[in-house]
């Protein structure tokens, strides 16, 4: 049924769009590499060997070594695990915190949403990175705090999306019908808003995911990330940047990986947004006549 529909129309920016296909392929490649890569690579990402410092890519070290003689490929793969963890974990924390706070406030009603969204507004006007740095400074370093800080800095976006869907759905006639029956906000939230909000929030998560990765890399680059030894892409770039003229491979490898991964994830997220765009569906439900007041 679905496949029949898919073959029919010429689809602009559809699955057949080569950029989307390549993006999906690269994301899958990184995920597989992060999962099985450590089993295939002989080198330890943390092993230092001052004899082979800044070695160029070759048969022994496929992507060369860094300034402490560590294998760049092994570190890249170890970093991929951490990067994906930050992306998924950060987006998940942002999702739960943002949608949770936003929707609970809306469900409680009265002055609560005004107060909560006032605070959300205040948080939102600050640069996201500043919030992350503030949170890390107060929570201390480590993987957990970094995840938490990155996730929380994107939570306002989810709160806003929740409120947008809430406002739209609350004006719908099926909510009016439920209210006529005497149902309250909690019921309407769980029965009517929740199924309609899921798509928008998942889309938002897909858009936030690469941004979490970039934010974490910046934090790592600034030397505030997870533990100093952990091979994250941001730290690899930071460490190798000082010696970029002598060992360009050491900085280029994580840099290219970061750019291509975030680009690919953004492409896929955007594609998902177009696919799930509620406005596209709304156009099909426009009434024949002008609504009478």
């Amino acid at each position, binding site marked *: 049924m679905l496949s029949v529909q898919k073959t029919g129309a010429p689809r602009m920016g559809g699955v057949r769009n080569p950029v989307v296909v390549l993006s999906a392929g690269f994301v899958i490649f990184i995920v597989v590499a992060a999962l099985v890569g450590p089993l295939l690579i002989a080198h330890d990402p943390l092993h230092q060997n001052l004899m082979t410092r800044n070695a160029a890519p070759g048969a022994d070290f496929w992507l060369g070594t860094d300034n402490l003689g560590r294998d760049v490929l092994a570190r890249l793969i170890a970093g991929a695990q951490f990067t994906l963890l930050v992306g998924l974990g950060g987006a998940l924390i942002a999702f739960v915190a943002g949608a949770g706070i936003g929707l609970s406030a809306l469900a409680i009603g009265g002055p609560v949403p005004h107060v909560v969204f006032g605070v959300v507004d205040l948080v939102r006007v600050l640069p996201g990175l500043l919030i992350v740095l503030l949170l890390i400074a107060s929570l201390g370093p480590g993987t957990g705090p970094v995840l938490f800080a990155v996730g929380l800095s994107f939570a306002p976006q989810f709160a806003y999306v929740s409120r947008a869907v809430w406002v739209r759905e609350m004006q719908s006639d099926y909510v009016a019908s439920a209210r*006529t029956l*005497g149902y309250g906000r909690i019921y309407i939230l769980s029965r009517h808003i929740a199924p309609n909000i899921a798509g928008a929030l998942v889309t938002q998560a897909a858009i936030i995911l690469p941004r979490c990765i970039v934010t974490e890399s910046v934090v790592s680059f600034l030397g505030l990330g997870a533990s100093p030894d952990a091979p994250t892409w941001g730290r690899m770039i930071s460490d190798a940047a000082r010696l970029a003229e002598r060992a360009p491979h050491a900085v280029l490898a994580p840099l290219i990986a970061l750019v291509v991964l975030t680009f690919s994830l953004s492409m896929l997220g955007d594609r998902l947004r177009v696919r799930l765009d509620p406005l596209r569906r709304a156009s099909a439900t426009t009434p024949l006549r002008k609504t009478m007041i």
Partner: protein
Amino acid sequence: MTHLLEISNLSIDINGARVVEALSLAIDKGECLGIVGESGSGKSLTALAVLGLLPLAASVDAASAIRLVGTDITRLDDAAMRRFRGARVGIVFQDPMSCLNPFMKVGAQIVEAIRTHKPVSGADARRQAQNLLREVGIRDPERRFGAFPHELSGGQQQRVMIAMALSADPALLIADEPTTALDATVQHQILTLLKRLRAQRGMALMFISHDLGVVASIAERVAVMRHGRLVESGPVHDILAAPRHPYTRALIAARRRMVGGRTKGAGQAATTGGVVVEGLRIVYRAKHSLGRSFVAVDDVDLVIEPGQVMGLVGESGSGKSSIARALAGLARPDKGRIAMLGQEFTRQSWQIPRHLRGKRQIVFQNPTGALNPRLPISTQLAEPLNAIHGPTGQERVDRMIQLLAEVGLDESYLDRYPHEMSGGQKQRICIARALLSDPDVLICDEVVSSLDVTTQLQVLDLLASLRAKRGFSMLFIGHDLDVVAAVSDHIAVMHEGRIIETGTAADIIERPTNSYTRRLIDAMDAVRLPQDLSDDFHPGLLGHIETGVGATSFFAAG
């Protein structure tokens, strides 16, 4: 003699699906052809094809030809078509607000249209634009020239659209549902304007509408379309007096039956369900301190006797829906009281007590918006039963199936989602949902306005039979006075938030005392299908349609 416009064998595909099939039509110089059809009949696509404005996904079959003043426009490239469009053929669409650029003064938009087609100076174009505005009946055109679209009323906006369409003196004007979005009195004015312009300019008119009455009031010939095919065409009088095709007959019969009398009065000896509204006032407060509040309803008194139907008519913005929303508990009254179900609803206590939940119910205009697109029908029908702590388990399912049967649907609909159903089916589901809690008061807010004519008839018949059986009282809101009169025992006419006249349905129609009501009735008279023609019908001709069962099965097939 060659025709001004000759469409021959026109077929249009969208994504491989045939939407217009071998259509042939012709319009002569100065003639008005009406095209009638329900949504999806391909009438608008035909108009767009004549303008060369079909959507990208659409393709015109190679065997088709659209000859406008002798040129086959299906063979023209974009540049040639642009010169043709506007100069030879102009169009007026349904919703003027969405066709006018909101950031541009209307005068500038007309000047732009003029200068696209004629090499005239700015001052000349300005003078011509003002003349056009005067010609389409805009008072004080010099001042209106500098107005933005939102400063004009819907009727004035449509006049501006017509002025733009006329700016290059086209030989053919296409009007695609030009009055559908307008109130009855404004519709009357626009139709009068179009008739006058046609006579003055000797211009041909292709008038597209779903409303046979409107088309009959303006066109000389009418073409009836259905499922992309031409069903029947001929002089308006002939088609109305002796339609040959069963679909045309059904269309005419549907409208006549819709406005024909129904069994009224209390279906059962109803004692509950009376509604008394006294001094109701509803104000929509401004969102911020500097905004103005809007008084939607002011000092309204209304009495619905138990088991009776009160019709509420008025134009858009008159406050009809606000009254519906207040009765349904969706809008809080600022003043006054509503007494129903043995309970007083006022500003202080406007929420329904638990034990009365489900005793008043509402059905909305647009059934697509009234059903949650993400939930199966069974879940949505469970809502009223949960509210009244109704039966559970198998008993609940039986109850739903029974109600589905009452609204003419079978139990397979329980597992469906709204997008798998037609508009009429969705409205039946909405009615079933409203009746599951066995209400004493049913509020119907424009319940048939978004449906096709034949579906409207089914829904109205359904409501009438359910009311006769269950005996609830009803507030029936509509903008079509004839339909409201056919359904209601009493009618209240609303204008600018107040009720200006109430009376029995017959009194309001035959002996209106208020000047606004009279204007409303005059506007309806102008587009009413001539009832006397029905006397010419051979009874056998309509036999299978006049019997309810035959009609239903015929429409269901479509």
